[in-house]
Every structure is written in C-alpha cells, then in structure tokens.
C-alpha cells in the first residue's frame, strides 16, 4: 500500500489523487497545525518539511510524496516530554507572533533555514554580501524567510528569534 511517513508514522495515501498534502493533513489526518493562507504558494503558511527540505504543502499532491518523510509543526517538538524546539522557545521569548496564523509555517521554515545556513547553501543576499559590508546575517535571514508572509508584521521579532537560535547553536 502506498504510504508516506508523517512525523514518524506511516500513513496511507488518500484515494483521490487530487488531494494536496495540505488538504490531506486537514481533512484526512485532522492535523490543523499547518495553515492554509492562500492555497496558491503565495504566503508560506502551509510550509512543512519533506525529506529535510521545506516546501509549500498547498502546491503538492500527497501522492507526489509517496515514501517521503514529512514533518509538520506537530512533529517538531522533541521526545516524550514534548519539549519545545529551541526555535519554538525563541519565538515565545521574542514575541515573534501576534495572531499566530503564520507561525507554524514560520517555524518549519526557520528550522530548515538553520540547516541551509549550516550547509552554506547560497542565497540572493550571500551574493552581494561582500560588495556591501553592511549586508548582515539579518538581511540574509530576511531573504531566506521571504517565502513566509506575516500579516501582523512580526518580521523583526521573527528574525530576532532565528538569530538567537543561530547564536545558541554556535555556543
């Protein structure tokens, strides 16, 4: 039977191939942490991590992810004691949200960003950094997070929360 692995558990793919991953999470698995903002790839509220890479759950059919390992916000916290991920904690400490609608997507995106930075993946801003010495880690984070809109405008605090975790990881 065709499955994908969701937060560590195998789940059968939906019968109707028209089901996007996002609708699959909501309508078949009752996992509502991942949000639907636009349903067209334009907001990032639906960001999840598939095989280690962040993607928009609204623009992928569930069947395209057969055998993939998908992590949603529900799978981010660690272990039996359900400790928060350092980035979740940093979001609380930095007040990195207001209404919270974009937050699960921001956090999945931010966690992927941490990995992308440590892999030294290029971004549009790493290109021009050497030219403009004022280009900073914060600008690079903003560029890498541009796929997650926040209607409440919590951007500065989101960038601060991510910066905190990068500093933590360096210790």
């Amino acid at each position, binding site marked *: 039977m065709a499955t994908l692995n969701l937060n560590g558990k195998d789940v059968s793919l939906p019968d109707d*191939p*028209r089901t*996007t991953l996002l609708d699959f999470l909501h309508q078949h698995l009752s996992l509502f942490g991942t949000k639907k903002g636009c*349903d*067209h*790839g334009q907001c*990032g509220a639906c*960001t999840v991590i598939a095989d280690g*890479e*962040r*993607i*928009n759950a609204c*623009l*992928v*059919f569930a*069947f*395209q*992810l*057969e055998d993939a390992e998908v992590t949603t916000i529900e799978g981010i916290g660690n272990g039996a004691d359900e400790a928060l991920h350092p980035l979740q904690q940093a979001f609380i400490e930095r007040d990195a949200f207001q209404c919270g609608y974009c937050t699960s997507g921001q956090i999945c*995106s931010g966690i*992927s*960003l941490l990995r*992308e930075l440590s892999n030294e*993946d*290029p*971004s*549009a801003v790493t*290109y*021009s*950094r*050497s*030219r*403009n010495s004022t280009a900073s880690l914060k600008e690079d984070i*903003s*560029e*890498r997070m*541009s*796929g997650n809109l926040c209607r409440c405008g919590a951007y500065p605090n989101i960038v601060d929360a991510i910066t905190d975790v990068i500093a933590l990881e360096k210790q």
Partner: protein
Amino acid sequence: MQPFNLHHYNGDTSLDNFPLSNTSRFLAGGTNLIDLMKLQVETPETLVSLAKWEKANAITEDDNHYYIGAMVSNSDLAKFAHTQPALSILAQALLSGATVQLRNRATTAGNLLQRTRCYYFYDTTKACNKREPGTGCSAINSMNRIHAIFGTSEHCIATHPSDMAVAMMALNAQVHTQQPNGNTRQIALRDFYREPGDTPHIENHLEDDELITHISIEKKANGTQYYHKVRDRSSYAFALVSVAAGLKIDDGRVKDLTLAFGGVGTKPWYPQKAIRVLEGAEITPEVISQAAEAELSSAKTYGSNDFKPELLRRTLEKVLLEIAEHQEKHPEHEGALYDNA
C-alpha cells in the same frame, strides 16, 4: 479541481505506454500546474507524474558540457551553479526567483514551461486568448503593468515569467527531448519559445507528447556576471525588468558578451539587436544607450507598462557599466560581480 487519470513515469518504461495528447500533462514539481488546476485554468484529463523518475534528478558534466536533468530542483541547480564560476549568472537568476520552499519543488523543465502570470489568464471569468483561444485579450486595453513590450501581438501581450530561463537564454542552453516513438531532439532554448502571433496558447515548439529529458549548457568562460532583477518588492516577486549579463573585456573592448532580458518579452528575451551594437565595442554610456535604442526600436507599450523601456535602459546601463568596470580592474575575473570585488 477536475478529476484526472494518473500515471507514473519512472524512466524505465516507454512513453508509448501513456495516453499522451493535448489533454494530458506531465507533472513535475507541480508548483505551477497544480495552482492552475485548482483554478481550472488547466483541466488535464491525464496526468503523468514524473516524481518517480529518479534518473532525471542528476547533474553531470564532461569536458565540454553540463547536463542538467529535467527534474533537478531549482534549489539543487542553484547550489551547483554557485560552485561553477562560469554559471554564476544561472545561480543568481535562480536565487532571485520565488522562495526557498518553491525552489525546493520547482524543477528545471517545469521552470522553462511555467505559464504566464497575466492576471486575466488566471481569472476564468475574463476573456483570454491564451487560456481560451478566440475569446480576446483582456490585458491589451486594460491593466498591463506587468506585461511585455517585445514580441507581443494584438492577440496576447503576456510575459514569460521565468528568471532561470533568462539566464539559460544568455548561456545558450539546449533543450533535449524524447517522444513516444523513441525519437530524441535537441532544440536551442533561443529557438524553443514561440511568440504569441495569433496562437498565444501555443508557447513553444514541443509536441503534446514530447518530454524534456535534460538541458545542456556548453562550458565556456563568461567573465564577470550579473543578474539584476527589478521588481515591486525585494524578494518573492516576479521581475518587472531583469537583465542577465556576462562580459569579458579585452584591450578595453567587448570580447565576449552574453546577454538576455526578463520581464519584458513574451518569451525570455534574447536581444540580438543590442548585442550586435555591443560586440567589439568599448562599453560607454553612449554605446549602451545605442544598444538599448536598437533593441527598443521594435518595442511596443500598452499604457500601464509605458515605464518599461526606460526602466530597461537604466537597468542595462547599470549592469553593463558595473561589470565592465570590474572587468577592467580584474581582466581574468570569472564569476559573480560581487564575489571578490
């Protein structure tokens, strides 16, 4: 969304096994096709998913060429191109497009074949010759700020929205394809797209049953390279105007120039007239202005996009002057303008 029959292509079976026609579509990353299917702009009866086509995920090279599999993601291609000084322009273009999430899913072939972002094309309540041939063009006398100035016709003025394709146009990429009868073809990207004419729904020279297998790019020095994209916000927006340029200067004159424009054409725009003016010339504001004028002689604007010729002139001037200056200082430089300035 309309129901469809689903098939999987894994690269091992013949394409002959699939009911390919003008009502079938290949599904790559899905970031464009699924979006259009939700809106019923696209209503394929058959989808052939390429998700299991592992072989098409590879980038390989020999002495003379890079070979990029059709399914290589925009992220992976950007990472690879970033390590190759001669492909800097491609890395820059890719990284300026969409977002990390989208680039992780978007594929090389899908990016080349993405449809326009014309608002009326997306709105099924509006007339649109590209979506429904013969119904008329809602953009031509209306809001057309994001629309084309080159290659337009009275039937359609929509731009091709890709950034990657602009860099590939400059780099003279070749598209390799396969058909159910086993035939393979190689088409230069510069000849791959069609201008709208009176058939704006036909956007390129692929047959309905033809699959892109890979892209090849010749290995050659491209000098100092710069992809400059002008848009409404600094990230996560399509180009209003973009210029992809690579330049080698010898003895104060243009030795090698690779150039293409985005956001201004009904296809990624290869500006032959401008290139002819610039070849062998000394790069000065006057020469750049002549080159821009030569290309713009065939431009046509439609009201809200009247600003584009001037924006293109200025962008071209900025890009060429900056890379020429860098080449003068570092004649052997190969890579991004801002690498080690």
